[in-house]
């Protein structure tokens, strides 16, 4: 606990220090990075005791109302999220330093740094708060600091709009949370999480709490169809902030849900299927929308929705397992969901950082203007490849481990549940398989269009790899991906401990092992794969040693002047899949009519329309706007009008209170 408190102290102090030392840029950047490194180390130390066992540590200070008590507490769930936050914010912070340092000299990044540190404080408090008031205060502060980080490029109109949308969306969510917490506090007679956890709620109330929590935290986490702020916010923010948003901010929604599940304990039976439904819909539609995007950060933003879907599928199976008292399902489900929280944070942050590096080098985010960048940006390219492999859940990297656990929970569900449960598990299984296939297609598209083939842009000069301040954080995250992928024992164990903690299951000795052991066996197979691959490479080199290395142009079936423009673009790559799923996604193609006798320039334009955004929230917005315009008649700003209102009010009061009878 001391480690954790001192890390909070360091963050706050250095945040203010940077604010006051604003003029000394170099010094501030140094303070910023030092603070980040120190804090991650301290957080790691404070999370360490929770790896094996479910102990806990509390810290309480009496405080004037409404807080009554400032209570922070560490338990396995908090420790897990603290660790995630520390990893990601370290990498994206250092990257941000490199990113902002060279970029524009006019804008002073120091305020940005200090908001970054304050955001970290609020994130830390969110995941450790043990009291409703403290939690909500930190939650709101987090939203605010994140808003300021997001609107770094506030000179652009689109950025300001995205920031506004983000604020509105998350506040709608917070409204639901407030209602939920007030009702819960009222029912429990206390605003303390621990006492809330001891209270027994009626099933109806539990259902209401859960539904409110689902909306409130769902907006933050980006559940479909509450995700609308995500695809705007990510491209608007600087890349490292997008990484932070996607890696951590949306995960606080998941943390909140898990905390609610932990507090409520007996979740009604309908919640599991509801979560599975949300997960499947978010996952499949998220990845389909992502396939239709050709702006790299928007694409990644939709992938966050997909991965949240996978996490929610895991939680849904966990709920189902708890409801049916099947320990193996609950363990694998929650364990998979939690590990995927960490894994997604790592590889998504990695992808956003490498996307930032690409944008920095090329000056654009449109992937159809890129191509062949692996030769110019070897570090960025390979880190992006590692991230892509991980996000597709392919073996050897961390995504595979957590997706494996989620898959495992489905298979356990098919084994142990009744027919209704099997139907749910099979549906989720098929949707996860579909998500996996589509994600692979999407990242095959993204990686190959950006990094492989010829360059599509008309630009002549070569691209430059970015400085080490930007590549090192990526290397750190990529190393984590590989480490968890190849040696998953520690973290799988940690997430299973956590799953046990959330569900409060009494486990027999072998039960965690039964989930963990197959993963280790699978890893043995993967090591064998690496050995075979190694030998094969040697053999191939042996075969080719005598032959001169033939180099030529790509064979284009007899055509002698292929140009980069002839390559498959991102839009054409995604087209068959989007046509296949035309009934689910709103896919618009605007072809040009080719009715001319002579060659003319023709354009074809296709895009995927975000249905909830366009057909649900925009109409609501339009109605709200009309209503506000109408309301303007009464709020015109003319003083005589307000005087008139006062006069009417006075007359009304007079008439009401006038002693008629007397």
């Amino acid at each position, binding site marked *: 606990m001391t480690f954790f408190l001192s890390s909070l102290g360091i963050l706050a102090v250095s945040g203010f220090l940077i604010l006051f030392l604003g003029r000394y840029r170099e010094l501030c950047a140094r303070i910023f990075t030092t603070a980040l490194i120190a804090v991650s180390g301290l957080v790691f130390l404070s999370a360490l005791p929770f790896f094996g066992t479910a102990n806990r540590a509390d810290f309480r200070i009496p405080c004037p109302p409404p807080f009554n008590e400032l209570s922070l507490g560490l338990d396995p769930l908090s420790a897990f999220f603290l660790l995630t936050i520390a990893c990601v914010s370290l990498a994206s912070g250092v990257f941000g330093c490199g990113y902002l340092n060279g970029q524009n000299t006019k804008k002073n990044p120091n305020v940005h740094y200090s908001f970054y540190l304050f955001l970290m404080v609020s994130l830390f408090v969110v995941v450790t708060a043990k009291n409703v008031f403290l939690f909500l205060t930190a939650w709101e502060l987090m939203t605010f600091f994140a808003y300021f980080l997001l609107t770094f490029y506030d000179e652009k109109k689109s950025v300001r709009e995205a920031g506004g949308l983000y604020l509105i969306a998350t506040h709608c969510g917070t409204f639901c949370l407030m209602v939920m917490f007030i009702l819960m506090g009222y029912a429990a007679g206390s605003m303390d999480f621990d006492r809330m956890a001891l209270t027994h709620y009626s099933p109806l109330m539990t259902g209401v709490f859960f539904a409110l929590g689902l909306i409130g935290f769902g907006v933050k986490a980006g559940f479909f169809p509450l995700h609308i702020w995500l695809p705007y916010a990510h491209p608007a923010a600087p890349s490292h902030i997008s990484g932070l948003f996607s890696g951590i901010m949306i995960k606080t929604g998941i943390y909140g849900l898990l905390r609610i599940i932990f507090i409520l304990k007996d979740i009604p039976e309908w919640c599991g299927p509801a979560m599975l439904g949300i997960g499947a819909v978010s996952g499949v539609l998220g990845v389909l929308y992502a396939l239709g995007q050709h702006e790299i950060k928007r694409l990644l933003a939709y992938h966050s929705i997909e991965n949240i879907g996978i996490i929610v599928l895991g939680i849904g199976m966990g709920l189902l397992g708890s409801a049916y008292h099947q320990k193996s399902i609950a363990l694998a489900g929650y364990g998979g969901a939690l590990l995927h929280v960490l894994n997604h944070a790592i590889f998504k942050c990695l992808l956003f950082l490498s996307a930032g590096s690409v944008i920095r080098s090329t000056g654009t985010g449109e992937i159809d203007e890129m191509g062949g960048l692996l030769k110019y940006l070897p570090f960025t390219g390979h880190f992006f490849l590692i991230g892509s492999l991980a996000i597709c859940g392919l*073996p050897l990297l961390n995504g595979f481990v957590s997706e494996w656990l989620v898959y495992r929970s489905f298979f356990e569900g098919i084994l142990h549940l009744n027919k209704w449960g099997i139907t749910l598990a099979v549906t989720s299984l098929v949707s996860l398989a579909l998500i996996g296939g589509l994600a692979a297609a999407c990242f*095959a598209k993204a990686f190959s*269009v950006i990094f492989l083939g010829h360059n599509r842009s008309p630009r002549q000069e070569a691209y430059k790899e970015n400085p080490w301040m930007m590549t090192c954080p990526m290397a750190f995250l990529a190393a984590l991906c590989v480490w968890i992928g190849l040696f998953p024992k520690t973290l799988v164990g940690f997430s299973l401990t956590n799953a046990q903690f959330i569900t409060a299951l009494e486990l027999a000795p072998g039960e965690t092992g039964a989930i963990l052991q197959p993963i280790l066996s699978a890893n043995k197979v993967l090591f064998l794969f690496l050995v075979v691959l190694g030998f094969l490479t040697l053999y191939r080199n042996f075969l080719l040693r005598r032959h001169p290395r033939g180099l*030529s142009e790509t064979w284009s079936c007899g055509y002698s002047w292929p140009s980069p423009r002839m390559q498959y673009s991102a839009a054409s790559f995604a087209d068959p899949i989007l046509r296949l799923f035309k009934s689910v996604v709103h896919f618009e193609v605007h072809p040009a009519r080719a009715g001319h006798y002579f060659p003319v320039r023709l354009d074809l334009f296709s895009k995927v329309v975000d249905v909830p955004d366009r057909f649900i929230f925009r109409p609501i917005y339009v109605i709200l706007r009309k209503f506000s315009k109408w309301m303007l008649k009464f709020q015109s700003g003319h003083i005589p009008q307000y005087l008139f209102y006062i006069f009417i009010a006075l007359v009304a009061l007079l008439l009401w209170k006038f002693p008629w009878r007397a």
Partner: protein
Amino acid sequence: MVEVFPVILRFAVCVLFSPFILGVIGKTKAFFAGKQGPPLLQLYYDISKLIQKGSVYSRTTTWIFRAAPLVSWAAVLIASLLIPLGGLKAPLQFAGDVILFAYLLALARFFTILAAMDTGSSFEGMGASREAAFSCLSEAALFLNFATLVVLSKSISLSRMITECSWDSWVRLGPSFILIIVSYFIILLVENARIPIDDPATHLELTMIHEVMVLDHSGPDFAFILYAGAIKLFVLGGVLVTFLIPFQSRNVVLNTVILCAAMTGLALAIGVVESAMARLRLNRVPSFIIGSFVLALFGLIIALSRA
């Protein structure tokens, strides 16, 4: 711990026997066409010839182009360790190995797609895009098949899922078995790019999928691609064959012989299908795969209602 002998035996069977299967398919097709056809061992000749040649690489390509054939070869070979082949038990079995099996195939496919895109050729891009589209569907159908097998066998390890279905359960669950066999057979054709989905005999139709992705590979790299294709057919076919032959002996040699005979039978069946059918129009292919998905779904429903 893993025993070494079964692993080596498995590798040997896959590596030595798999090209023969394609020879049998070729011969069957030639027979139906009234031709003599290439010799049964044609793929062995092709591979040994290609191995002796040098490779030519496009200047556009990166190491991914070179690595992809090796990755696919190694991935399908390792995937073969997870399945029982006839009487030969799987050298490695654990709960949920079925996920690893599917994802090893996905890894191979991912790298093949990247390699195709690496050349910067629009032909290969076309093939890559189609492969990505169809494999999403076939992967979902494959997992649905596995789910049905889990329901039928009450186990989540591939070995038991496949071998547990005994003959007496055929009486009760026969319809379910038949449905998933047909469904799986379709997936087998899709995954191995056979007619009616794809024509392995031609390269340059604009309607091709798999063959067009490997246009630029040459020499040993191309040998590994052909070889990986043969092993993949062998592995996926082995699952089907093992499901169908319930007979096992204690003798390893006898088991191997039975397996090879059964695989030859499967190759004949594929050859007959290829001779009797024309390739589907490209926009009909998804319906075909979805058909396999639906069959598996009915299989699951029957299994649930009778199990």
